[in-house]
């Protein structure tokens, strides 16, 4: 075995992708045992359908949240307000489509504001929410959990105020395409891909990613190295707000409603879990992998979809999810240490 080949394999084995991919593969394998036809794909009207596609489509919201959340957790923080920001964005989008809710335009082509402007305004507001969190954490010195808890509590109230506690139905078709449209694959996946690419470029093709990791690993020494910890954290929280805004648009477009009460409810917890499964250390931060975070989101979604596919009753789903999460986390903590130890001892023996 040449040195180059073993080091690439070794690098992959050590990377953050291994664990979530193994867990995902295990879940899918488990599904295959239960239902040999689980991986079946069908093409209907030029669209791909199947269980795998379901996992991808339903997981789109959490995947978007996981991208932003990975960056925040990597700086050593957490953002509990993403669910509330999703609700705020959905409310604003509904408001922009039809400012006078009572009129309820049923015309699918009618919208007071053009789609691009809806995007711009909603995402700007979402990013401002992220900015608010970032200022509190980076410049206010407030603990991230507490600072984002505030927006989490208040944000739902704000979203409800915007829509005056009414669930707004959205008839505007181009907006509904976000969550429901198909271009062979569900359109929301393309949105996830675009957002992922943007942040991958921002973090891995500029030094931002390195700065984020440095701040997470040791904020003090990165300060002495000239990295502005405050601005890096600010960027991370703004990115998380942006992703939450996008997730809110996709989610509300999916159900064609802006439901300020239920959109994004408890999704912040799913997002944090996705990031933890993806290998980014909660509370400490440091090295991160956006792609691993996305795989983590898929793992969670795969658990849910598998449960439905096997026929677990819906009311048992949450319990199973909780138990699986604990098992996964326990595996993560002990296994990684054992794996590295064994791999390191193998390395020592071979040299």
């Amino acid at each position: 075995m040449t040195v180059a080949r073993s080091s690439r394999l070794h690098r992959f084995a050590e990377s953050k992708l291994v664990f979530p991919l193994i867990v995902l593969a295990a879940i899918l394998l488990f599904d295959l045992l239960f239902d040999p036809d689980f991986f079946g794909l069908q093409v209907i009207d030029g669209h791909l359908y199947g269980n795998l596609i379901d996992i991808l489509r339903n997981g789109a919201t959490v995947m978007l949240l996981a991208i932003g959340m990975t960056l925040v957790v990597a700086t050593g923080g957490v953002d509990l307000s993403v669910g509330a920001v999703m609700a705020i964005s959905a409310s604003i989008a509904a408001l922009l489509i039809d400012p006078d809710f009572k009129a309820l335009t049923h015309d699918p082509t009618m919208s007071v504001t053009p789609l691009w402007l809806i995007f711009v305004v909603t995402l700007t507001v979402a990013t401002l929410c992220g900015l608010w969190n970032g200022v509190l954490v980076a410049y206010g010195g407030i603990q991230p959990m507490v600072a984002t808890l505030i927006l989490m509590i208040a944000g739902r109230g704000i979203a409800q105020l915007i829509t005056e506690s009414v669930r707004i139905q959205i008839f505007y078709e181009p907006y509904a395409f976000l969550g429901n449209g198909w271009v062979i694959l569900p359109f929301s996946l393309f949105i996830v891909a675009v957002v992922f690419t943007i942040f991958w470029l921002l973090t891995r093709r500029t030094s931002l990613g390195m700065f984020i990791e440095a701040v997470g690993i040791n904020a003090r020494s990165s300060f002495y190295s000239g990295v502005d910890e405050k601005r890096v954290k600010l960027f991370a929280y703004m990115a998380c707000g942006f992703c939450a805004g996008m997730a809110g648009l996709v989610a509300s477009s999916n159900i064609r409603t802006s439901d300020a009460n239920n959109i994004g409810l408890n999704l912040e917890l799913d997002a944090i879990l996705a990031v933890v499964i993806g290998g980014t250390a909660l509370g400490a931060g440091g090295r991160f992998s956006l792609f691993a975070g996305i795989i983590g989101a898929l793992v969670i979604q795969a658990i849910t979809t598998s449960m439905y596919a096997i026929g677990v009753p819906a009311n048992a789903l949450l319990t199973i999810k909780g138990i699986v999460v604990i098992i996964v986390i326990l595996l993560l903590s002990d296994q990684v240490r054992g794996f590295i130890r064994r791999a390191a001892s193998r390395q020592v023996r071979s040299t």
Partner: protein
Amino acid sequence: MTDRSSSAWVRYQRFAPMGATILLFCLAYAYGAIAYEGMRDPQVFLNLFRAAPFLLISAIGMTFVILSGGIDLSVGGVVALTTVASAALLRGNGMDPWLVIVVMLLMGMAFGATMGILITYLKVQPFIATLAGLWVARGLCFWISDDAIAIDNRLWDVLGQTKLLIPGLADPVTKQGPFISILVVVEFVVLFAAIFVAHYKGFGRTVYAIGGNEASARLMGLRVNRTKVLVYTLNGFCSALAGIALSIDVSSGHGLYAMGLELTVIGAVVIGGTLLTGGSGYVIGTLFGVLVIGVIQTLIQFNGSLSSWWTPIVVGGLTLVFIGVQSFLMARRTKRATSRRRTAQPRTTGDPPLPEQAT
């Protein structure tokens, strides 16, 4: 700054956040009493205690968890699970209600102990362990029943509807006047027990020590692991008790109850002056935190024109203000400590410093 003038502030500084809460409560209540005639009825004040015993009991348990530096997100789930489970057990001519209460409390303690063990011995992050606990608890609710189960039990009715008239204010003949319920008595018993444990028992002292610095506590020889598991067990007990109180209040049980309770509880604890990082705070402060939330809700109700969605916004804003005050005070304390070490402070009174004390 001389020692004499700073000593009063330094001595009472740790009461500042809680003092602010009490002041805020008094101001808010005074505003309400002036603005709305209905609020001057003493029953309104008593209703603050009658309205949410489950919130206060739950918050007392959470105070201990936060004081130890941890967090427990499962309270809402355990409360809901307790309501559903007790409703299911009391269905028909089910179990003896007193036995149901004991079983529920044991269940809550078992739940808390499990999470405590996961956190302490298996080193799972409290956030994640209690989050999984929340999911398991809520899921179990729906396993028991999809719909709400009504409770029709004599003990439950007695506990919920007995009016304890306030002596001196109420008229014993006509049985009218300001009253409280039995649950209010229960919540005060829990409160005083908690204060006693926190300040007069080794367990409480260990909790504060762990929250301050867990490594130091361990090195001091305190039984950190045992205490951490006990803290979560205690919180499980409080959540179950709160669930029983809720089921008495609404005479039913459902898995959708107490949604988002954990947030309100954490908010109440923080507003009550407890630092989220742990190690600092008072149990009595949590009482005032709950009262402040209650008075805000009352004010909004009496106003009538404001949407009730303003309550979470105001609670969120208040939490922010209190945290800001806490961070500010903490920053000032560390800044003053480091600056005193670095610069030689001119002393205007008192003895000159000994040569080895000068910086």
